[in-house]
């Protein structure tokens, strides 16, 4: 079947030489949406910094301390946003993730405070592992139940998870009778970040080197593969450009987290405990990457591979694009729905690990309103509520945008009501921009 339109479009394209920017975008094959989001993030960061510098005499935003905290605060929402992308791509919604987070946190709390100390003793090495597993299993089961109700009983996801929002919060309250469960296991608490919950300078360099090697390997392997299949290659300069930018970003991140030192009090305690003499100007001990940030990083990498390189991910997109076509292609769409919601529940459980470890206790109120931030993060990150479109990195960037806005407004002293107004407005505006982008790119 010939197509005359396409033919004429092609000859038309060769006649008008593309501009410099277009050629640059084409050769590097960069995603314009990704660049847009990074640009927005940069704008927010610089904007808050400059505003603080001008108005309060001190730009607090672009400091290692603030950016390090920002990364930790984003982790919990970011982890869940990775799952929400799948849910929204398949034209569902999950309103229950905040409550499921609270429920999982309570399960982990009672496991490590009420049960395990009696069985194995307080602060036993296995406590944090068993607690985490219990919480993540609880989340996975809750998600699977939601998915089953949606897929096999045909109850809309909105209703099932709206019910879940109330049910799991209520169950969490019933379990704890409203008490705050603490103190949590000290190893478990490391998973929430904080000075000791970070991998330190050497650890961060190891993470950085692994990332650099991975980036270079991906570029080389990608090029070899294109050669093998005789596809169009990126120009060498474009490969170098992407490589240098990526490696630079990794090294920059490592330098950043390593330039944020432990507070003096903690250094003194650490020095006393290890019999280290604190020199004259104080001891500089780097935080390095916080553990929750590394958890988020692993989730992002794994989920990106799942979405782009596995059949499961391909089917998620196919179901979102055309559920009927997916079913006719032999995909078990119902079972897929159960799996997707179970995965969402698992990630809510993982998020509960981070959130409750960071708080140092488990309460039934943990994660309240998180569902809204998670959905907002996914949507700001370009996930379409119409289904079929969305990326993991977009959702995580969306989470960073949300958190940056909030942090920034706290730093410059906006009160909570103004913060709500701004965040809500930004959500709506971001989706409007996204619509414009989609229309123009068609």
């Amino acid at each position, binding site marked *: *079947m010939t197509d005359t339109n396409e033919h004429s479009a092609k000859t038309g394209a060769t006649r008008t030489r593309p501009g410099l920017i277009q050629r640059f975008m084409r050769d590097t094959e960069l995603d314009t949406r990704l660049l847009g989001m990074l640009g927005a993030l940069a704008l927010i960061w610089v904007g808050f910094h400059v505003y603080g510098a001008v108005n309060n005499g001190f730009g607090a935003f672009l400091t290692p301390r603030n950016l390090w905290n920002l990364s930790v605060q984003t982790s919990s929402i970011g982890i869940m946003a990775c799952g929400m992308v799948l849910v929204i791509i398949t034209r569902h919604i999950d309103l229950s993730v905040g409550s499921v987070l609270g429920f999982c946190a309570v399960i982990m709390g009672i496991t490590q405070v009420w049960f395990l100390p009696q069985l194995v003793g307080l602060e036993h090495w296995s406590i944090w592992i068993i607690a985490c597993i219990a919480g993540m299993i609880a989340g996975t089961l809750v998600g699977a139940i939601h998915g089953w109700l949606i897929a096999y009983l045909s109850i809309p996801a909105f209703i099932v998870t709206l019910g879940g929002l109330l049910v799991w919060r209520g169950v969490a309250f019933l379990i704890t009778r409203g008490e705050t469960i603490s103190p949590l296991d000290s190893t478990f608490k490391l998973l929430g970040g904080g000075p000791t919950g970070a991998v330190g300078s050497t650890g961060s360099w190891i993470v950085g080197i692994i990332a650099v090697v991975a980036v270079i390997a991906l570029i080389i392997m990608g090029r070899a593969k294109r050669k093998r299949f005789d596809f169009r290659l990126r120009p060498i300069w474009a490969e170098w450009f992407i490589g240098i930018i990526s490696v630079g970003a990794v090294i920059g991140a490592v330098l950043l987290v390593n330039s944020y030192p432990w507070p003096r009090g903690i250094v003194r305690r650490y020095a006393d405990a290890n019999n280290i003499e604190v020199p004259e100007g104080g001891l500089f001990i780097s935080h390095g990457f916080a553990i929750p940030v590394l958890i988020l990083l692993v989730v992002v990498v794994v989920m990106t591979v799942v979405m782009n390189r596995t059949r499961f991910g391909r089917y998620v*997109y196919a179901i979102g694009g055309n559920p009927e076509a997916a079913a006719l292609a032999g995909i078990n769409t119902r079972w897929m729905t159960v799996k997707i919601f179970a995965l969402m529940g698992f990630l809510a459980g993982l998020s509960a690990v981070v959130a409750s470890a960071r708080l140092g206790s488990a309460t039934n109120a943990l994660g309240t309103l998180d569902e809204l931030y998670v959905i907002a993060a996914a949507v700001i990150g370009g996930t379409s509520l119409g289904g079929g479109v969305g990326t993991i990195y977009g959702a995580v960037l969306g989470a960073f945008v949300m958190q940056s806005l909030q942090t920034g407004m706290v730093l410059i002293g906006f009160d909570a009501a103004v913060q709500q107004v701004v965040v809500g407005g930004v959500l709506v505006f971001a989706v409007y921009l996204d619509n414009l982008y989609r229309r123009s790119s068609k």
Partner: protein
Amino acid sequence: MSDKTNLGTPLVEMRDICISFGGVHAVDHVSVDLYPGEVVGLLGHNGAGKSTLIKVLSGAYKMDSGEIYVNGELADIRSPRDARRFNIETIYQTLALADNLDAASNLFLGRELTSAFGLVDDDAMESEARKIMSRLNPNFQKFKDPVSALSGGQRQSVAIARAVYFNAQILIMDEPTAALGPHETQMVSELITQLKAEGIGIFLISHDIHDVMQLCDRASVMKNGKLVGTVDVADVTDDDLLSMIILGKQPGKAV
């Protein structure tokens, strides 16, 4: 039935198929068969039950009663995956493409090529897609775009490529030319003739009597879920077929 191709074992035999939706008999005790290298037209009004019958064969619907034989053996078809295992491929009227995925992903949907680690191998799939498309539609270039960006004819060629690529023995085409221009319709006709020569059996659902007269060896006509009759196309005229469709009368019998 004097046609010599109808000797031997049929490729597909659907016997006494019944399926009803909420008390309506969409397909009511219908039997049809298909031989290798043969094109059988399925005709009838909208709602006559042609698409429903064919969706039983492609695994999209589960029949209430009846039997399907493939190459003379009872075939248990409960899902699209089962149908594909019997080398039954379908080109749906709606094309059944996931609009947000590119041509290669659609072509291999449900049967992705994977690398040694079990990961989806997009480059290998694109390479294969380029090969098959260069045969079916040499002008096709948009391998990186989602199929929503393609024209009707290009989308159709993706749907056809999907059916042809996997060595279909039995091909179901539900109104393959309904959305196409005259030139593209001609291409589909040539493709049908070519596939037929390769020994593939084709069920062709069509509204166009001329298509049927030109391409089909036999025609089965349905009305209100029942089979009116199956005729050799060479033995009947356009008017005979029309009266079967409209009046539900077998030719040669008193009107």
